[in-house]
């Protein structure tokens, strides 16, 4: 399969420019620079070439050439990912799908939209709005992130407890195999015969194929949404209140918790009126019909009071609802103001373990002498500790990464997982053997082999090879130097 001589960079560029607009085959360092990393910017690499094809046939051709010569291919959407999943390969091609940015059709009656992979998440909702519809998953990067990347990462957002993840909100994908062969997976129906390949592809981090089209489900916009803000004197009380709501049979549209560091930073930044002395804050959004929201909001207010909330405030207008959310939504940049850098983690834990995990995290915070602020998708147990550090202090980033790894181990110990929504990429590949044993990792590798025997699709990401695992187990934590500060959003 492999040609006798692998083309060098100049030859590869020439091959690609035969069928792609020469300006869309980027081979100079300066123009390539924006592609050297994704949202997790301390992991950087310069690729051999960046290509921005604008037809599926061109993508096929790129894949055929790369397959023939065993050249790594790293697919890329908007580059907002937070696990270095889109970090280039030094000897590979970055395949940007940015030009595939058209919404092909919206079917309001069937409540679906057919879109190209480079369409932004929010653009789908905006386009569907006039039909009274929207796309459910809303990662914080939704202004910029693309649906292709959402499929690759199985992205969530603040509304997933009620509305699900990407895997629950897509009907089908068109994709290309590593050989460039077209595959249609899923249908316009709600399921297809046989094993669920659509689920397997979703969240596969670009390791199994290249998505060229996605059909998403659209949901009717709720008639009404209201948010309740409640302050508590302890994290345990707030966690109990979350349990109380769920036990009462209410599934909130969003249920977010912030700890004291995050509250103060957010309030200083957004002036949303968050009580500055609270130890924990809950934001609980309820949506649905007007009558349903009325009924549930009254129950939520009562529950919060009964669980010892020191203050309870319910949005009385859309403006007030937006203001109350503004604090939460700006929590990350707000934390960025109280620290030169921060590192965002992404474990998931059973909700009942929250107080234990936060206490343990505070202990680790003392051990590493690094502050940590927490924002928590409380409804679904997805925790985002933000470790505050200064990349200019020698050794501090390495310490931060080690602290982060300890947090992820803690999440697995209490029955959770190492990543709830950001993906494994390169960042968490060392933690994969904590969550999975060797046989399980071998099974993952066998799945990869079924799609990509030569291993050229996004190599080195997502799933460690067994060789990797053994190395990781014996290896002390070795990290790359941070080249820029680390900012991320969830």
């Amino acid at each position, binding site marked *: 399969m492999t040609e006798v001589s692998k083309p060098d960079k100049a030859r590869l560029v020439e091959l690609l420019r035969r069928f792609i607009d020469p300006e869309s085959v980027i081979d100079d360092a300066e123009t390539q620079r924006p592609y050297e990393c994704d949202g997790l910017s301390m992991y950087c690499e310069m690729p051999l070439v960046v290509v921005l094809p604008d037809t599926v046939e061109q993508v096929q051709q790129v894949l055929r050439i790369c397959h023939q010569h065993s050249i790594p291919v790293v697919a890329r959407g908007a580059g907002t990912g937070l696990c270095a999943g889109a970090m280039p390969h030094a000897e590979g091609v970055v395949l940007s799908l940015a030009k595939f940015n058209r919404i092909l059709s919206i079917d309001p009656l069937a409540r679906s939209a057919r879109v190209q992979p480079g369409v932004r998440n929010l653009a789908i909702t905006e386009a569907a709005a006039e039909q009274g519809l929207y796309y459910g998953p809303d990662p914080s990067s939704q202004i910029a992130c693309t649906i292709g990347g959402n499929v690759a990462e199985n992205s969530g957002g603040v509304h997933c407890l009620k509305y699900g993840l990407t895997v629950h909100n897509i009907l089908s994908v068109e994709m290309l195999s590593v050989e460039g062969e077209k595959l249609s997976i899923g249908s316009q129906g709600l399921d297809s015969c046989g094993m669920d390949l659509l689920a397997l592809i979703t969240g596969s981090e670009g390791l199994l194929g290249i998505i060229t089209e996605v059909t998403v489900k659209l949901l009717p916009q709720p008639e009404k949404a209201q948010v309740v803000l409640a302050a508590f004197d302890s994290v345990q009380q707030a966690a109990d209140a979350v349990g109380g709501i769920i036990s009462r049979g209410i599934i909130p549209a969003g249920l977010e918790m912030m700890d004291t560091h995050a509250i103060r930073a957010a309030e200083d930044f957004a002036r949303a009126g968050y009580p500055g002395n609270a130890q924990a804050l809950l934001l609980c959004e309820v949506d649905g019909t007007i009558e349903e929201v009325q009924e549930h909001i009254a129950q939520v207010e009562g529950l919060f009071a009964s669980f010892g909330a020191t203050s309870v405030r319910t949005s009385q207008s859309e403006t007030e609802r937006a203001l109350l959310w503004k604090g939460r939504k700006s929590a990350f940049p707000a934390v960025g103001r109280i620290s030169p850098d921060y590192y965002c983690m992404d474990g998931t834990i059973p909700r009942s373990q929250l107080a234990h995990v936060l206490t343990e995290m505070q202990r680790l915070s003392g051990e590493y002498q690094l502050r940590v602020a927490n924002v928590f*998708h409380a409804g679904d147990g997805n925790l985002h500790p933000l470790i505050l550090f200064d990349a200019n202090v020698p050794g501090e980033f390495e310490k931060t990464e080690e602290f982060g790894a300890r947090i992820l181990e803690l999440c697995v110990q209490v029955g959770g997982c190492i990543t709830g929504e950001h993906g494994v990429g390169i960042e968490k590949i060392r933690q994969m053997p904590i969550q999975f044993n060797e046989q399980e990792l071998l099974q993952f590798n066998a799945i990869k082999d079924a799609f990509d025997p030569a291993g050229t699709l996004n190599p080195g990401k997502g799933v460690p090879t067994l060789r990797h695992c053994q190395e990781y187990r014996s290896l002390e934590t070795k990290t790359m130097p941070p080249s820029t500060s680390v900012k991320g959003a969830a």
Partner: protein
Amino acid sequence: MADIVPLLQQQILSARDQGTKLNIIGGTSKAFMGRVASGDPLNVGGHRGIVSYQPVELVLTARAGTPLIELVAALDEHDQMLSFEPPRFSAASTLGGTLACNQSGPGRPWWSSVRDQVLGVRLLNGRGEHLRFGGQVMKNVAGYDVSRLQAGAMGSLGLITEVSLKVLPRPAVSCTLAFDLGLEDALGLMNRRAAEPKPLSAACWLDNRLYLRLSGAPAAVDATVRQWLGQGERLDDGDAFWVALRDQKLAFFAGKAPLWRFSVNPTAANPALEGDWLIDWGGAQRWYRGDASMAQMQAMAEAAGGQVSLFRGGDRQAEVMHHQPQALQTLQQRLKQSFDPDGVFNPGRLYGWM
């Protein structure tokens, strides 16, 4: 309440050594599904029991051989439910079989499918390795989604031994409305209603009647009933209708005529095929009774944007699932190989070529 994994593991390893095949059996309630079974029985029915259930976490983990009715009883105590309303073709229907056959009931378009609610599985692969994928938390993107891949695989990738599921609170009230409507009008109305932000939870058409179920907070259901009722009728025994639909106990499902299942675009014009039709899932799942050729049915399903399977009856030596293009066929064979290199599990049950 027994853990019989070591026994199951031993049976798999010995079949592998001896080059024999295994036919996975749970409660035998879905023996009619798929192609005709072959191989020695591998009975997972004894591997049963709830492993953990924390109502406040909305997560339940149970062994694959646990009967659905046992799960439902446990959930009932906490006013929670299996939101995908799995069919109970018999009292013995199991959790593992429900996932392997991807079976979900009338609420599926609004309350998710079994595939949607799966959070994790444990599974014995063809090498006899007992593996754990996914987990017991709502959000988990570490590794490939092997858990949901099992939905519809009919055991071809391994023996599911344990399943973790997201469960949901039972809605406070439900109410069923019925309207006299022809098929085309009913299809149009169910889709228009589904596009409204109202507490619709099931929509079915049968015998020139459209049935809509509303579920949720009492005030929301009452208000929607007032808006939607019009010339319709509010049924007293609505729940009984949905249970009979779910378990295929309605008269429509009786008798020997082949039962075809179309999974299609909910708005697609119904295939021009004379005979008995039942429309469920707001138009996305359509049932047909009668003799027809697979090729003819596939063409109609594709025209409607979806796929067809011969669900029950008819020729089960032939293919009963929608044709797979060559590239997908090869891919699925390779996947099968990756889980079950010696082809021990359920040979030919899903497709003749697998």
